[in-house]
C-alpha cells in the first residue's frame, strides 16, 4: 500500500455523507439497514486503510517516518498558497488509528442504540460520518488552515449532534451553548493562525504548512511565540473543555449517548491535546506557555473531579470525569511529556468510550433514566455491561495492571521529575487520582449494586442490550486492559513503545526527521529531552503511593455507598454550603452568567433596540428605498422603443469619440 493512498481515509466517510445525506431519506424508506451499512462500511474502510498505512510506516526506519502527500492546491493568492495535503508521521497515524478504530466501534454501537429512535436515522449517520471526515481531516492535515477546517467541522458536527433531538428545548440550548463557547475559543485560535501567518510572512515565509512553519519558528520573537501559543491554547481549552471554557461539555451530554462517547469523550475533545502536541516546537520555545498549559490542566483535573463527586446524573459524572482526564493530558503536555499525554489520549479513548457506551446500555435498559439515585442492582440484569464497565472503571482510576495505570503513571512521573514539572502539580494530580477512584466507584456502586430503586414499571423492562451494542463493549474492554501494555514504562521492565514510536515527532527528534525528509533544519530552543531517568526505584515508589491513594478512594466509596449509606446524606446535611457548592459545580455557570452573559446581553439588547433598529435599520432601509427609487426612475429609460435604444448607442459613441478627438 502506497502512502499516496492516504486520501482514501477521509474520502470514504465523505462518500458516506454524500450518499446518506443526499439520498438518505429514500434509502431509509426502502431499506433502513442499508443506511448503517453504508455509514459503518465507510468508517470501517477508512480504518482498514489506516491500518495498512500504519504498518507500512512501522516498516520504515524511525528517522524516515515522514511523508507529506500534497493532494491539490486549494487557495492561491499571489505568493500565498495553501494546498489540501495530508501528512503522515507517527503522530498523525497514531491519532488516526484510534480515531477510525474507536469511531468504527461507536458506529456499530449506534446501530443498536439508534435503531428504535424516532428521529431520522440517515440524518444521524450522516452527521456521524461528517464528523469522522472532519476529525480525520483535522489529524491528517499538513497545514494549519486545513486543520482549522477540520477543527471547525468537528465543532459543527458536535453542535448538530448535541441538538440532534432538537425538538426538545433543553437540547437546543445545550447545542447553542457548545457552539457559542467553541466560537469564543475558535476566534482566538484563528487570531493565532493569522498572527503566525503575518509574522512569518514578514520574513518572506508565506506558508501555513506545519513543517515549513516549524522549521522557521526561530524567526519569531519569543514574546510573539508565547502570545501565539497562549491564543492557540485558549482555542484548545474550548475544544478540549478546560478551564475557563469547559462549561459546555457537561451540557453536551444532551446528545445521544454514542455521540457523547465518540465526540465528547474519545475523539473530538482530544483535538486540543493533539494540536498542542503537533505544535510542540512552538510550545518548546515558550516555557511560560508550557507552564500555563500544565497549571490549567492540573486545576481542571481537580475542579472537574470535585464536581463529579456530587453529581447524580450518570452521564454528567462521566462528562466531568472526561474534563478531569483531559486535564491530566494537558498536564502531561505542559510538563513536556508529550508522548505520555498522547498515550493517555489513547487509553482514555478506549475506556471513556467504553464507559459512555456502558452508560448508554444502562440508560437504554432503564428506558431513558439517567439519574443514578433511581438505579441500582443492575449487576444481575446486565452482566455484560457490568463487567465491561467495571474493567473501564478500573482503567480510568489507574488501577495497577489496567490501561489507565500506565498512561497516568507516565504523566505523574514526568510531572514529578520532568524539567517543567513541580511537586505541587504532582500533588494535585495524585489527589485527583484519589477523587477519581472515589467518584467512579460511587457510580459503580450506585448503578450496579444494592437494590434497585427504580419504579416497578421500569424494572420490568430492564434488559441486556442487543449484540451490536455489547460486542463493541467487549472489544473496548479488552483494549482497556491490554491497550496499556504497549506503553509499559522502563522502570517496570517494559520498553515504552508509545514513547519510542512518537519520539521522532517531538523535540529534537523532529529536527532529524525533517532533515532526513529533505527539509531545512530546525533551529529552535527545544527543551532538552526529558530528564534522564533518575532512578527507577523512585518511580516505583511513587507508583505505589498513587496506587495506595486510589485504593483509599475505592475504600471510601465502598464505605459511603455500600456499607453506611446514610453517611453521604448526613455529610451533605452537615456541610450544606460546601455540598451545594459542589453540587452546583462551583457556581461557575452562574458566575459566567453574571460576569459575561448578562452584561453582554444588556449591551446587545441596547445595540438591538437602540442602535440596530433605529440607526442601522433606518440607514439600511432608507438606502434600500433610495436604490429602489433609482431603479424605478432608471427603469423608465428602457422605454421599449427601439429607436431610443439606438439613440442611446449613438450618444455613447458620440461622447467617446468627441472626448478622444477634441478633449484629449
Amino acid at each position, binding site marked *: 500500500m502506497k502512502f499516496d493512498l492516504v486520501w482514501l481515509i477521509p474520502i470514504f466517510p465523505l462518500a458516506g455523507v454524500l450518499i446518506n445525506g443526499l439520498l438518505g431519506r429514500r434509502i431509509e424508506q426502502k431499506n433502513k439497514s442499508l443506511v448503517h451499512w453504508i455509514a459503518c462500511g465507510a468508517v470501517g474502510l477508512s480504518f482498514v486503510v489506516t491500518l495498512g498505512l500504519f504498518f507500512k510506516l512501522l516498516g520504515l526506519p524511525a528517522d524516515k517516518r515522514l511523508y507529506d502527500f500534497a493532494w491539490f492546491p486549494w487557495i492561491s493568492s499571489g505568493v500565498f498558497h495553501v494546498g489540501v495535503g495530508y501528512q503522515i508521521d507517527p503522530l498523525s497515524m497514531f491519532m488516526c488509528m484510534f480515531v477510525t478504530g474507536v469511531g468504527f466501534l461507536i458506529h456499530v454501537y449506534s446501530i443498536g442504540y439508534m435503531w428504535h429512535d424516532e428521529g431520522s436515522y440517515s440524518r444521524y449517520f450522516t452527521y456521524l460520518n461528517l464528523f469522522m471526515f472532519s476529525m480525520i481531516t483535522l489529524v491528517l492535515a499538513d497545514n494549519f488552515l486545513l486543520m482549522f477546517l477540520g477543527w471547525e467541522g468537528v465543532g459543527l458536527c458536535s453542535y448538530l449532534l448535541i441538538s440532534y433531538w432538537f425538538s426538545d428545548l433543553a437540547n437546543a440550548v445545550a447545542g447553542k451553548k457548545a457552539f457559542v463557547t467553541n466560537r469564543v475559543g475558535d476566534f482566538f485560535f484563528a487570531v493565532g493562525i493569522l498572527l503566525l501567518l503575518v509574522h512569518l510572512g514578514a520574513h518572506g515565509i508565506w506558508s501555513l504548512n506545519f513543517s515549513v512553519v516549524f522549521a522557521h519558528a526561530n524567526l519569531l520573537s519569543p514574546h510573539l511565540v508565547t502570545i501565539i501559543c497562549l491564543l492557540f491554547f485558549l482555542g484548545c481549552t474550548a475544544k478540549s473543555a478546560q478551564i475557563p471554557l469547559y462549561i459546555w461539555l457537561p451540557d453536551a451530554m444532551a446528545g445521544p449517548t454514542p455521540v457523547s462517547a465518540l465526540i465528547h469523550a474519545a475523539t473530538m475533545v482530544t483535538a486540543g491535546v493533539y494540536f498542542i502536541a503537533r505544535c510542540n516546537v512552538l510550545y518548546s520555545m515558550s516555557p511560560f506557555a508550557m507552564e500555563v498549559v500544565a497549571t490549567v490542566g492540573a486545576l481542571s483535573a481537580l475542579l472537574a473531579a470535585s464536581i463529579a463527586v456530587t453529581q447524580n446524573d450518570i452521564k454528567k459524572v462521566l462528562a466531568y470525569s472526561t474534563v478531569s482526564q483531559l486535564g491530566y493530558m494537558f498536564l502531561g503536555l505542559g510538563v513536556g511529556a508529550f508522548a505520555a499525554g498522547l498515550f493517555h489520549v489513547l487509553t482514555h479513548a478506549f475506556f471513556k468510550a467504553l464507559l459512555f457506551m456502558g452508560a448508554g446500555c444502562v440508560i437504554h435498559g432503564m428506558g431513558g433514566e439517567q439519574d443514578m439515585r433511581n438505579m441500582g442492582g443492575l449487576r444481575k440484569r446486565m452482566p455484560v455491561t457490568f463487567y465491561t464497565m467495571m474493567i473501564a472503571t478500573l482503567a480510568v482510576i489507574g488501577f495497577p495492571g489496567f490501561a489507565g495505570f500506565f498512561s497516568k503513571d507516565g504523566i505523574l512521573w514526568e510531572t514529578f521529575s520532568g524539567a517543567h514539572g513541580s511537586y505541587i502539580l504532582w500533588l494535585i494530580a495524585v489527589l485527583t487520582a484519589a477523587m477519581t477512584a472515589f467518584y467512579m466507584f460511587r457510580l459503580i456502586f450506585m448503578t450496579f449494586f444494592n437494590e434497585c430503586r427504580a419504579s416497578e414499571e421500569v424494572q420490568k423492562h430492564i434488559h441486556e442490550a442487543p449484540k451490536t451494542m455489547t460486542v463493541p463493549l467487549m472489544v473496548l474492554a479488552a483494549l482497556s486492559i491490554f491497550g496499556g501494555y504497549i506503553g509499559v514504562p522502563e522502570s517496570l521492565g517494559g520498553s515504552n513503545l508509545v514513547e519510542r514510536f512518537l519520539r521522532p515527532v517531538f523535540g529534537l527528534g523532529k529536527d532529524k526527521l525533517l532533515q532526513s525528509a529533505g527539509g531545512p533544519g530546525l533551529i529552535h530552543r527545544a527543551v532538552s529531552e526529558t530528564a534522564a531517568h533518575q532512578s527507577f526505584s523512585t518511580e516505583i515508589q511513587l507508583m505505589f503511593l498513587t496506587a495506595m491513594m486510589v485504593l483509599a478512594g475505592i475504600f471510601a466509596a465502598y464505605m459511603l455507598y455500600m456499607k453506611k449509606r446514610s453517611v453521604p446524606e448526613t455529610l451533605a446535611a452537615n456541610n450544606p454550603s460546601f455540598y451545594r457548592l459542589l453540587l452546583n459545580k462551583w457556581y461557575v455557570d452562574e458566575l459566567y452568567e453574571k460576569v459575561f452573559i448578562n452584561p453582554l446581553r444588556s449591551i446587545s439588547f441596547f445595540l438591538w433596540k437602540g442602535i440596530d433598529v433605529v440607526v442601522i435599520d433606518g440607514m439600511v432601509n432608507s438606502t434600500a428605498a433610495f436604490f429602489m427609487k433609482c431603479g424605478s426612475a432608471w427603469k423608465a429609460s428602457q422605454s421599449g422603443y427601439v429607436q431610443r435604444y439606438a439613440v442611446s448607442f449613438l450618444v455613447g459613441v458620440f461622447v467617446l469619440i468627441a472626448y478622444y*478627438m*477634441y478633449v484629449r
Partner: protein
Amino acid sequence: MGLLAIIICGGAALACALLVILSRNTVHSALWMVGNCLALAVLFLLLNSQFIAILQVIVYAGAIMMFIIYAIMMLNLREAGEDEFRKSLLSGRFIVLFLFMICLLALGLGLSPMALKGEMGPHSLAKFGEVNLIANYIFVQGIAAFELVSVMLTAAVVGAVFLARRD
C-alpha cells in the same frame, strides 16, 4: 478632373441617401437606395477597384435591393403612417445633434492626414483591384473566412426560411 468626378458621384450618393430617409413612400426609398448603390459603384471604379464595383452593382443593386423591393411589394407597404416622422423632423433635436456630429466626424476623421503607408505594396496602382489579386487573397489567405461565409449564408437561409414559413 478626378476631383470633379468624385464630387459629382459623391454628391449623387449623398443625395440618394438623403432621399432614402426623406421620401414618404417605402418603394421610393428602396429605389433611391439603388441609386445610392450605383453612385457608390462609380466611386469604387474611380478608386481603381473594378471588381468591387461590379459586385456592388450585381450583388447590391441587383440582388439585395431587388429582394427588398420584392418584400416591400409582398407586404404591400406603400404608405406607412409617417406623421410622427414629420413631427420629429420638425422638433429637430436629432437633426441638430446629427449635423453637429457629422461636422465633428468629417473634420476629425475625413480631413485628417492618412496614416503611414502599409509596407505591403509591391503591386502597382493599376493592378490594384484586379480580380487576380483579390482571388489570390480569397483562396490563399482568406480561405477560413471565405468558408465561414458559406456557413453564415447557410445559417441565414435556414433561419429566414423557418421564420417566414407559414405553418
